[in-house]
């Protein structure tokens, strides 16, 4: 469903992604781990169409379509969902209104009629229970005055409402205590349909105890330098990133030497 091929992307002429290749099949969970500055967030930006980074090379094919030609809202309507690392506050816009607009835009895109008010409210109630979000929160403005944990729960609640084909969770575990982490992770598991694919971007292994990945990739210096099963996450937890760094640098070194 998603093929990223030799992707290179730069921010202000500084290359961040340096030839990233990744394939995600329907229903798979991929964890992307890596030290700070390795390009994890840039990958999330490129996937969702945020214009902070410029793609200079490579391709991204999503469900057979060239993703890079699509606007951010079109990607969203096609089923790409990003759980933001830092969810944005939008004062004055109620969660209800926001969610209704988002859902109906998606339905319009798929040739469906808008949801009736009662059906919409029913879904809101149902999904709120799934992620154990306080009812009062959805009556407030989008993320306004929410605590860090509430904001993250609210992201997962929106994911539940929008039922994406591909969910990108960008550092969803950051800033969460263990209870909130469990609720958020279980929320993701509960709302995931068999064919929903997930990319979990994380620094730590602890989220992966709840959302069990099929593959773990290590992103380092803009490239995936190692891919394996869930056991790789544990190894990283134990040994840190230093050995990866060394290994990667050595390969890089030897490669440049070869060139010479």
């Amino acid at each position, binding site marked *: 469903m998603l093929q990223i091929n030799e992707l290179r992307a730069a921010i202000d002429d500084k290359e961040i992604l340096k030839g990233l290749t990744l394939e995600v099949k329907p229903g798979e969970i991929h964890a992307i781990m890596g030290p700070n500055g390795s390009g994890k967030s840039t990958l999330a930006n490129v996937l969702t169409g945020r214009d902070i980074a410029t793609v200079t090379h490579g391709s991204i094919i999503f469900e057979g379509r060239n993703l890079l030609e699509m606007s951010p809202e079109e990607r969203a309507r096609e089923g790409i969902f990003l759980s933001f690392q830092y969810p*944005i506050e939008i004062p004055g816009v109620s969660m209800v209104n926001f969610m209704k607009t988002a859902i109906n835009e998606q339905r319009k895109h798929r040739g469906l009629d808008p949801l009736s008010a009662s059906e919409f409210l029913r879904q809101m109630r149902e999904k709120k229970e799934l992620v154990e979000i306080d009812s009062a929160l959805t009556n407030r403005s989008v993320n306004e005055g929410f605590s860090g944990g509430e904001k993250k729960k609210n992201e997962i609640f929106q994911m539940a409402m929008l039922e994406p084909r591909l969910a990108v969770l960008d550092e969803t575990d950051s800033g969460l205590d263990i209870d909130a982490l469990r609720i958020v992770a279980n929320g993701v598991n509960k709302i995931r349909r068999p064919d929903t694919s997930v990319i979990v971007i994380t620094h730590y292994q602890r989220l992966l105890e709840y959302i069990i990945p099929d593959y773990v990739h290590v992103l380092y210096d803009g490239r995936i330098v190692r891919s394996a099963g869930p056991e790789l996450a544990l190894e990283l937890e134990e040994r840190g990133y230093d050995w990866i760094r060394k290994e990667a640098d050595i390969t890089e070194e030897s490669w440049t030497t070869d060139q010479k």
Partner: protein
Amino acid sequence: MEKDQDKVLTEVTSGEYKYGFVTDIETEVIPKGLTEDVVRLISAKKEEPEWMLEFRLKAFRHWLTMKMPTWAHLTIPEIDFQEIIYYAAPVQKKGPDSLSDVDPELLKTFDKLGIPLEEQKHLTGVAVDAVMDSISVKTTFRETLAEMGIIFCSFSEAVREHPTLVQKYLASVVPYTDNFFATLNSAVFSDGSFCYIPKGVRCPMELSTYFRINTSNTGQFERTLLIADEESYVSYLEGCTAPMRDENQLHAAVVEIIAERGAEVKYSTVQNWYPGDKNGKGGIYNFVTKRGICKGDDSKISWTQVETGSAVTWKYPSCILRGNNSTGEFYSVAVTNNYQQADTGTKMIHIGKNTKSTIVSKGISAGFGQNSYRGLVKVLGKAEGARNFSQCDSLLLGDKCGAHTFPYIEVDNPTAIVEHEATTSRIGEDQIFYCNQRGISTEDAIGLIVNGYAREVINKLPMEFAVEAQKLLQISLEGSVG
């Protein structure tokens, strides 16, 4: 990235004005220019009594001694008052008694504006006085209202049929010497609405006046007088549109409200005069004096305005809180897009004891628009226990527009409590992207955010108009993202 943002900005701010059409109808116009003879001619056209003409002439002579005010934060090219036509009227049978006497073209015009003049077409129970250029075309539901003793008619008819009331209250809140534009209006005003709610009556429907400028080169100078007798209630709404033209047109209105003891008046405006094109060409110059007096104890006047139109807006709907325990409110949303300029706000004059006022002003600037809030809160020496709360918020879309706040506070009573809060915010790129990522387009995102921002004010409008106002906000800002 900067470039992209600019591009989107330009796109969103180039929405079309929907009401820019011209009605092709036979119109009687007098020669342009302003002299004493023109004032006499207008009065004669309207077959006015001597006292009305005298009032006009006094005003005109005084106006000759005045200069156009320059203190507002507005850049206005010099206006040649001799180039304006002061009277233009669609030709129709005198005093149309039934709808069949009204020119079908006029009916079509108001239909197209969403203001059907057939009473049975009204779903919501709104009585309308429709004013085109200098005269009132038709007032609906008059008979129904008359049964309750409510007078709702054009100003001209009021002068003929209710001279005692008009003489008693005319210029009692805005004297003919008040300011350059009010004085000009006093000399040449052509029509407008008159409304009287008798003691103890709660007006069962929304009363509204719809102003339409049609003829080119004309000014519109209407006058509205609204009297709420003791313990009465009325909610009143005015709307305005004009054709798209390259020249600027002048609109200088006066609205006076009198609230007697225990009376409550809610006055709402949805102002959508032609704002000019995206390069700042054309548009209405809107110079309006609106003032109400809470004359009796426990009375209340509430102004709500949604100002999206006009090239220039100069307008300060105010309350004189003379009665003890009286309340004044001002809720405003003013949008300036492209090259629009607005200098608007209110004056709350606390005279009586325990008087209360609330000011909520929400400015939205986009494009090259300049938006100023100007407000005065004045507490006189005898106003024991006066209270005011003011909140002035500015929202900026893009980086070429401006927002300014000029609050004046004068307090002469130590027991007064006056609070002022102000914020300036900007629609952030990250907010827009957050919406985009949920499938919401940039334009819809701006609509959501702007309507959320203005909601506190929009909610004060009568329900049927709140929806309209919301759409209007979105259209006014179409094409403007920051």
